[in-house]
């Protein structure tokens, strides 16, 4: 693998093919400057990205898409379908297990990023959107449990209401109102989660994968000689 690694400059952003005036042109230039195609769809990656732990990012994304896909089938067929159809029950099982995988992958991803201090280098918003994605997903999962139309839903609705009522949220968000929970689960929360996930991915592509910190006393570990690295700023204070 080592022979594949080469010292390269970061990809040069493609020039805006047709500089134009007006708001549209300004927006296009902004997009090209912020996220050129080479960053959005790169065909190289930094040499230090060489651990299985990185897989949990793309696993989280693909599990999220699987959750959305299986949920879409359940939504198309209607809320009661899975109770009366063997196929529906299987699709519900797919939805359940994709959620379990999604939350597991995302948790591992978050824990790994914590230990990598992945917020370094103007990546705080990447961290924040990641935490938000986990929180919104957990809340979406709760509403999913509430619309199952079985004993689980009944019990969770009557228990979850107490916590939400205690902080005033229950006045507007009624866990026992099936219609309200259905709309939150299949429309509002997936939309919010999707926006956050897309935002998170664009931030990752824009800032790149966080580099390893230099070990104390090892200034050379901060990148090539030409890189604007500062050993003291990147140092891991052992």
């Amino acid at each position, binding site marked *: 693998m080592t022979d*594949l*690694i080469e*010292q390269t400059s*970061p990809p040069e952003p493609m020039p805006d093919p047709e500089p134009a005036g007006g708001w549209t042109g300004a927006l296009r230039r902004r997009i090209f400057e912020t996220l050129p195609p080479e960053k959005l769809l790169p*065909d190289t990656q*930094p*040499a*230090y990205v*060489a*651990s299985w732990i990185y*897989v949990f990012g*793309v*696993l989280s994304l*693909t*599990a999220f898409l*699987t959750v959305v896909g299986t949920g879409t089938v359940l939504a198309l067929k209607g809320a009661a379908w*899975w109770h009366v159809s063997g196929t529906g029950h299987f699709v*519900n*099982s*797919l939805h*359940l*297990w994709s959620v379990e*995988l999604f939350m597991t992958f995302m948790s591992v991803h978050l824990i790994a990023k*914590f*230990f*990598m201090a992945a*917020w*370094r*280098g103007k990546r705080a918003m990447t*961290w*924040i959107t990641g*935490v*938000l994605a986990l929180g919104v997903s957990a809340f979406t999962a709760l509403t999913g*449990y509430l619309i199952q139309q*079985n*004993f*689980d839903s009944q*019990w969770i609705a009557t*228990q979850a209401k107490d916590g939400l*009522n*205690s*902080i005033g949220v229950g*006045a*507007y968000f*009624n866990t*026992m*109102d*099936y*219609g309200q929970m259905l709309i939150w689960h299949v429309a509002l929360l997936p939309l919010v989660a999707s926006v956050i996930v897309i935002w998170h991915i664009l931030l990752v592509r824009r800032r*790149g994968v966080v*580099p390893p*910190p230099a070990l104390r006393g090892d200034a*050379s*570990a*901060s990148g090539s000689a030409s890189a*604007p*690295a500062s050993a003291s700023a*990147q*140092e891991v*204070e052992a």
Partner: protein
Amino acid sequence: MRRGASTEPDPYSFGSRPYDLVKEFVIALVAVIVLTVVLAAAFSSPDVKPMTIASWATSDPGDFTATALTELDGSSATAGYGPPYNSAAPGQQLGPLHIARMAGVTHPIDTVDAFVLKPLDSVPQSPDVTAAITAWKAAGADQQAAWTSAYSDALDKAGGDPAKVAPGAYGPVPLMLAQLLNQAQAGSLEGQLMSENGFYHSDYTLPLMFLADGSDMAAEAQTQHLAGTQWGMMNEVNNFPGQPWLAPYTFWYQISPYKTSGNGDVLVWGTMGLVGAALLFLPFIPGLRSIPRVVPVYRLIWREHYRRQAAKT
């Protein structure tokens, strides 16, 4: 770890390797779909039928009648809940803040009216039941309280079995509750509770609150290890995986003062609000953001990188 934002080296200054992002995505997607299908085929998903008021009233008429009596005399959990259902209690308190009370009563429930009188009024009744309802409505609050108190005591003495209650001065209460039990066992009470909201039904607040005021739903949840003291928030029926990601939330309910305080729910939410904010803004919190250097897992993650760097030097 300090952030050192302005001095972060460019990721590509460490060298690069070929990478096919689309290929990685497709492989990951296929792998996740296959894994999901295998798990779904192997373990399926739970679907325990919902408890109905009819099944409850049929299997445990004593508990149903006792619960209906608490709705009538205002001693049920719903009747004394406070906001957002009524003003019988101030709601939970976080320090000086009564957040629930500030949000107000947005889903008003008068348990006498909602759970007893409206269902009885919604169907044609026999003359004696009609007379009983009329007598109840005409009586003063003191008289109503005397009837329900006497009947409650008698029901306790009868071991909770309404059929064994000795004759006494209970006024119209036994007849009203017996008719309500009949409607519940016949399966019509659920529909009557739902129809209080109009023609279209999607709000199950009333039947669920009525069910939850009884003891059978909690008993079933206990059997399914879903109770709060059993870490039930993260559990699922039949030992299926539930919501393990709620472990940090349900943890607080297992320890004092959260599990013993009358303000336990709002204390847990307040605590989780602080924990959540700390996690969200962790990059800006000195001390917390330095934990990764104290627990150097990063050395394991980037071991190849550090090995290469060591070889170079």
